[in-house]
C-alpha cells in the first residue's frame, strides 16, 4: 500500500520560477509573423439605434487593413453566442446575441465595428475615425421599473424585459410563518462588481488560408468550451480548431465564456488572411468583460422566541444585463442554498431575471453562493438581534448536525461539523474577552462590533446526474496519464490553472499515486491540441472532479504496471505488492522493479499474451455528488462615528475543505478569496448613471480595487472533515473565502452600530454611507 508523502506537504510552486523572472507566457506575449491588430469600436450609448456607419475615413487611415462591421461578419459567423439553461431550464426569453451589433446597440461597450491594422497604435487611431450615426433610445437601468407594465424595452424586438421568473417552493411556508413568534423583513442588496483579473482579456487568432486550420490563443478558464462554441459558430470542426490558453493572469469567473471578440478576431483572421491580435485595455475591460452579482433580495424570516428558525421566504431580483451571460442563471443557485447550514421547516424562494441596458452579469468568484451566504447570515443575525440572542448561539442552535444531510431542495450535504469550526473560531478570537472589550469600548463612546459568517457551499461541479438536467451539460472532468519509456510522466488535464497552482498540486497527487518523484511529473493544461476534452476551471471543481480524474488514470496505470511486474517476475498478479512505486513479489521486497523499469518494458517486446504496448490511460470522472466545504469566519471591526470609516481589527477564519493537498496553496486561496469578499463589503461597486446609462466607475481607482493598505492580516486555521464522495477526501477552496467574508464584515458593522438602532447596512459600507446612517440615527 502506497504511503502518502507529497499530499499534505507545503511544496513550493513549480509555476513560480518563470513568473518571478519575467518569463511567463500571457496572451499579450504571443506574437506571430505578419500579425495584424484589432481595435474594437464600441457603442458609447447604453441603448441606441445604429442608423449608419461611415468607415471611409478609418479605412483611409495609415496602416489600416480592414474596417469590418456586422454585414462583413454575418456571412462568416454562422451562429450566436451560446447560453446555458443553468438552473432555469424554462427561461422566459433567450434573445440571441450576435458578437457585433447589427442595427441596435443595447449596452455601452457593445462592439459596433472593428479596425484591423498593422499595429495597435494605428488601429486605435483609425477607431477614432469611424463615424457611427446613433439615435439614442431610452435606457432601462432600474430593475423594478424594467418589470413594470409599459416600461421601455432593453431591445426593441423583445416582448418585455423579463428573462426568467422561477419559483422554488419547499415545505409548507404558510405553516412556518403561522407558527412564528417573531418575524423579520429586510431588503438586502448585492451590488454589481467587476471581477477584475489583473490581466485583461485578449486573443490571437490565426486562420491559415487554404489550409483552413485555426489556432486561437486566448486568455480563458475554459479552452475546450471556446473551441466547441467559437469553432462551431465559424463552421470549423474541433479537429481543425486548436485553442491555447497558456498563462492566464486571473479569471475569477469572468473568463469562462466565449466572448464577442474571440469570434470577431477569428472571423477577421479568415477575412483578412492574416493572424489577428486583440488585447483589451482596462477601460474596455470594465465595460465589456462580464460583471458579477447585481442582485437584490427581499427577505422574510419566521422564527420562535427561543431562536428556533422556522421559515425563509425571499425573492431574488437579478440584473441580467442586456443579454444573458452564458452562465448568468447559475446565480439562481442562491435560491437553493438560501438556507445555509441551518435546519428550516420551509423555504420559499423566487428568482426573477431582469434585462437592463448594462453589460451582462455572469459568475464571479462564488457565483450564487456568496449571495446565499450573505442573505442567510444576515437573516440569522436579524433574528438574533430581534430576540436578544448571541449570534454564536442562534447559529449553534440551528446548525445541521447529522450528515449526509438533505436540504430543503433535495441537495445532499456530504459531510460537515459546523459546531467544531464555530468553537475553534470562538476560541481563536477569544470571544468572551472580545465581548467584554466591546462593552468597555462602548462605555468610552467607541463602536466595536463582532460579526459571524458560518458558511457552507456547494462546489465540485458536478455530478452529471445533477448538472445535466440543471445546466444542460454534464460537468465531468478528464485526464490523460502517460508514463514515458524512461519513467517520466506527462499528465494532460481538461481543467485550467490560472493562479490555482495545479501544476504543483496535481503533480503532488500523481507523485503519490504512482510512487514517482514529483520532479518527473509534468502537468499540461490549456491547450486543446494535447489535452482531453474538459469543462475547465470554475466552481471550485478542479481538485474534487479534475483531481479525481487524474487519480482514476493513475489507478489504470498502476494496474497495468502490476500485470507487467507479474509477467516479469513470473508470479501471479495477486502476489505483486505495490509500495511507493516499487513492485515486488510478496515477501521479496529486495528484488523490486520501479515504475520506470516497467514502463521501459511496456514499450518493448515480450509482453504478456494479448497486452498492447505502452503505459498510459485516459479517464473521465463523474462525481457521485457535489462537495460541501464549510467554516466559520469571525470579524471584529471598529467604526469611527465621526467619519464612518471602518477598521478591521481582527479577521479569524476556520475553514474545512476536507483533506488538504498543499496547505500553502489552500491558505493562499483563502487570503485572496477573503480579500475579495471584504472588498465587496467595504469598497467595490460598479456604478452607472441611472438616467444616462453611462458608467461612473471607469477606472480601477474610481471602482476602488483595494491596495495592500486596506487589507487586514488574516488569522487562518482549519478543521479536516474529509468528503466521503471521493477517494482523496477533498472538497474545494477556491471560492470559500469570498463566499464567507462579506457577511462576517457586514454583521460586524451592524453589531458595532447596534447602539444607534441600526439593524442592516448595505454594501459597500463606505464611510459616506455609514456616516449618513449614523447622522440620521442621531437626529
Amino acid at each position, binding site marked *: 500500500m502506497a504511503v502518502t508523502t*507529497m499530499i499534505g*506537504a*507545503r*511544496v*513550493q*510552486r*513549480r*509555476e*513560480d*520560477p518563470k*513568473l*518571478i*523572472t*519575467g*518569463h*511567463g507566457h*500571457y496572451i*499579450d*506575449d504571443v*506574437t506571430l509573423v505578419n500579425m495584424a491588430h484589432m481595435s474594437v469600436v464600441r457603442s458609447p450609448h447604453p441603448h441606441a439605434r445604429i442608423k449608419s456607419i461611415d468607415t471611409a475615413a478609418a479605412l483611409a487611415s495609415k496602416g489600416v487593413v480592414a474596417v469590418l462591421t456586422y454585414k462583413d461578419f454575418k456571412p462568416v459567423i454562422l451562429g450566436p453566442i451560446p447560453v446555458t439553461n443553468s438552473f432555469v431550464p424554462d427561461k422566459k426569453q433567450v434573445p440571441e446575441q450576435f458578437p457585433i451589433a447589427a442595427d441596435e446597440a443595447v449596452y455601452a461597450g457593445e462592439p459596433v465595428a472593428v479596425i484591423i491594422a498593422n499595429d495597435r*497604435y494605428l488601429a486605435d487611431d483609425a477607431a477614432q475615425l469611424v463615424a457611427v450615426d446613433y439615435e439614442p433610445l431610452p435606457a432601462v437601468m432600474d430593475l423594478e421599473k424594467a418589470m413594470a407594465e409599459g416600461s421601455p424595452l432593453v431591445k426593441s424586438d423583445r416582448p418585455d424585459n423579463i428573462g426568467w421568473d422561477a419559483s422554488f417552493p419547499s415545505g409548507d411556508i404558510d405553516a412556518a410563518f403561522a407558527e412564528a413568534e417573531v418575524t423579520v423583513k429586510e431588503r438586502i442588496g448585492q451590488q454589481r462588481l467587476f471581477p*477584475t*483579473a*489583473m*490581466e*485583461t482579456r485578449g486573443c490571437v487568432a490565426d486562420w491559415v488560408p487554404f489550409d483552413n486550420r485555426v489556432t486561437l490563443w486566448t486568455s480563458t478558464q475554459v479552452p475546450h468550451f471556446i473551441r466547441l462554441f467559437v469553432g462551431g459558430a465559424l463552421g470549423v470542426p474541433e479537429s481543425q480548431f486548436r485553442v491555447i490558453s497558456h*498563462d*492566464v*493572469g*486571473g479569471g*475569477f469567473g469572468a473568463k469562462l465564456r466565449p466572448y464577442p471578440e474571440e469570434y470577431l478576431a477569428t472571423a477577421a483572421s479568415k477575412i483578412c488572411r492574416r493572424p489577428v491580435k486583440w488585447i483589451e*485595455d*482596462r*477601460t474596455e475591460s470594465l465595460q465589456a468583460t462580464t460583471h458579477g452579482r447585481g442582485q437584490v433580495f427581499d427577505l422574510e424570516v419566521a422564527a420562535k422566541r427561543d431562536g428556533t428558525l422556522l421559515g425563509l421566504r425571499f425573492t431574488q431580483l437579478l440584473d441580467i444585463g442586456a443579454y444573458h451571460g452564458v452562465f448568468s442563471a447559475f446565480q439562481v443557485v442562491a435560491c437553493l442554498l438560501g438556507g445555509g447550514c441551518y435546519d428550516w421547516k420551509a423555504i420559499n424562494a423566487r428568482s426573477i431575471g431582469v434585462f437592463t441596458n448594462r453589460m451582462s452579469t455572469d459568475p464571479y468568484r462564488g457565483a450564487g453562493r456568496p449571495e446565499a451566504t450573505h442573505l442567510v447570515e444576515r437573516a440569522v443575525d436579524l433574528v438574533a438581534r430581534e430576540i436578544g440572542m448571541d449570534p454564536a448561539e442562534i447559529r449553534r442552535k440551528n446548525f445541521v448536525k447529522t450528515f449526509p444531510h438533505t436540504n430543503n431542495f433535495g441537495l445532499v450535504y456530504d459531510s460537515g461539523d459546523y459546531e467544531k469550526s464555530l468553537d475553534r473560531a470562538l476560541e481563536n478570537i477569544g470571544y468572551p474577552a472580545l465581548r467584554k472589550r466591546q462593552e468597555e469600548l462602548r462605555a468610552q463612546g467607541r463602536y466595536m462590533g463582532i460579526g459571524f459568517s458560518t458558511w457552507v457551499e456547494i462546489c465540485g461541479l458536478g455530478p452529471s446526474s445533477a448538472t445535466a438536467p440543471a445546466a444542460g451539460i454534464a460537468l465531468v472532468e478528464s485526464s490523460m496519464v502517460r508514463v514515458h519509456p524512461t519513467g517520466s510522466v506527462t499528465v494532460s488535464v481538461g481543467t485550467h490553472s*490560472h*493562479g490555482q*497552482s495545479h501544476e504543483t498540486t496535481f503533480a503532488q497527487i500523481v507523485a503519490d499515486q504512482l510512487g514517482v*518523484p*514529483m*520532479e518527473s511529473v509534468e502537468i499540461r493544461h490549456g491547450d486543446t491540441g494535447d489535452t482531453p476534452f474538459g469543462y475547465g476551471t470554475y466552481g471550485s471543481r478542479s481538485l474534487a472532479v479534475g483531481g479525481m480524474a487524474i487519480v482514476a488514470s493513475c489507478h489504470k496505470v498502476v494496474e497495468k504496471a502490476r500485470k507487467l511486474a507479474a509477467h516479469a517476475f513470473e508470479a501471479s498478479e495477486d502476489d505483486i505488492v505495490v509500495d511507493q512505486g516499487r513492485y515486488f513479489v510478496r515477501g521479496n521486497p529486495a528484488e523490486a522493479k520501479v515504475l520506470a523499469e516497467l514502463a521501459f518494458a511496456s514499450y518493448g517486446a515480450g509482453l504478456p499474451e494479448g497486452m498492447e504496448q505502452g503505459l498510459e490511460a485516459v479517464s473521465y470522472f463523474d462525481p457521485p455528488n457535489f462537495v460541501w466545504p464549510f467554516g466559520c469566519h469571525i470579524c471584529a471591526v471598529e467604526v469611527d462615528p465621526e467619519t464612518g470609516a471602518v477598521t478591521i481589527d481582527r479577521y479569524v477564519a476556520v475553514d474545512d475543505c476536507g483533506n488538504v493537498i498543499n496547505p*500553502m*496553496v489552500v*491558505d*493562499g486561496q483563502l*487570503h*485572496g*478569496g*477573503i*480579500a*475579495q469578499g471584504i472588498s465587496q463589503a467595504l469598497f467595490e461597486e460598479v456604478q452607472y448613471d441611472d438616467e444616462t446609462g453611462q458608467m461612473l466607475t471607469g*477606472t*480601477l481607482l474610481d471602482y476602488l*480595487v483595494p*491596495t*495592500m*493598505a486596506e*487589507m487586514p*492580516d*488574516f488569522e487562518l486555521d482549519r478543521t479536516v472533515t474529509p468528503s466521503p464522495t471521493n477517494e482523496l477526501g477533498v472538497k474545494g477552496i477556491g471560492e470559500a*473565502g469570498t463566499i464567507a467574508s462579506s457577511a462576517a464584515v457586514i454583521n460586524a458593522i451592524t453589531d458595532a452600530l447596534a447602539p444607534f438602532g441600526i439593524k442592516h447596512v448595505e454594501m459597500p459600507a463606505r464611510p459616506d454611507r455609514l456616516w449618513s446612517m449614523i447622522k440620521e440615527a442621531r437626529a
Partner: protein
Amino acid sequence: MTQPVALTINGRQREDRVEPRLLLVHYLREVAGLTGTHIACDTSQCGACTVMIDGEAVKSCSVFAVQADGRSVTTIEGLADGGTLHPVQQAFWDEHGLQCGFCTPGFIMAAAYLLQQNPTPTDDEIERGLEGNLCRCTGYTNIKKAVRSASRAMNGGAADIAGHAATAVASSVEG
C-alpha cells in the same frame, strides 16, 4: 516620423528609431522583446509595468520611450544575477507571494526599490511603499510577508522558510 533612442536595458546598450508617442512599456515589450513587464490598466494605477530607470522605480506606461534616451533601464528580466534570484524574487517564491503571477513583476520591482531605499521597512512603510501596485489574487498577505522576508535576507538574516518539502526546495531556477 521616428526619433532615435539609445539606452541601456539590463546592462546592454540598444539603439532604435521609434515614434515619439511610443510608450516605454510598449518599447520594452514589442521592440526590445522583454515581455516580463506587463500592462494591466490604462491609467497608471496598477503598477504592473514598474521598471527601474537609473535605479528609481517608474511605471513604464507613464513614460515615453524617447524619455528614456541616455538612461539605464532595469526590467524584471534583469533583476536576477545570472542564475541566482534576487532576494525579493526568492522571497516571493518562498512565501507564496504570487498566484496568477501577472502583477508580480511590477510588485517585485517596486519591492526591490523599496528595500533599496529602506532596507528595514515597518509594515506601515511596506504598505505605503507598495500602495501603487494592485494584486487581485493574494489579498496582499503573502506579498507583505515576502517583503519582510527579503528584508531579513538582504540584511544578513536567513529568510525564514519552514517546513518546505526537500524536493521542492531543490528545484532549480531553470525549472
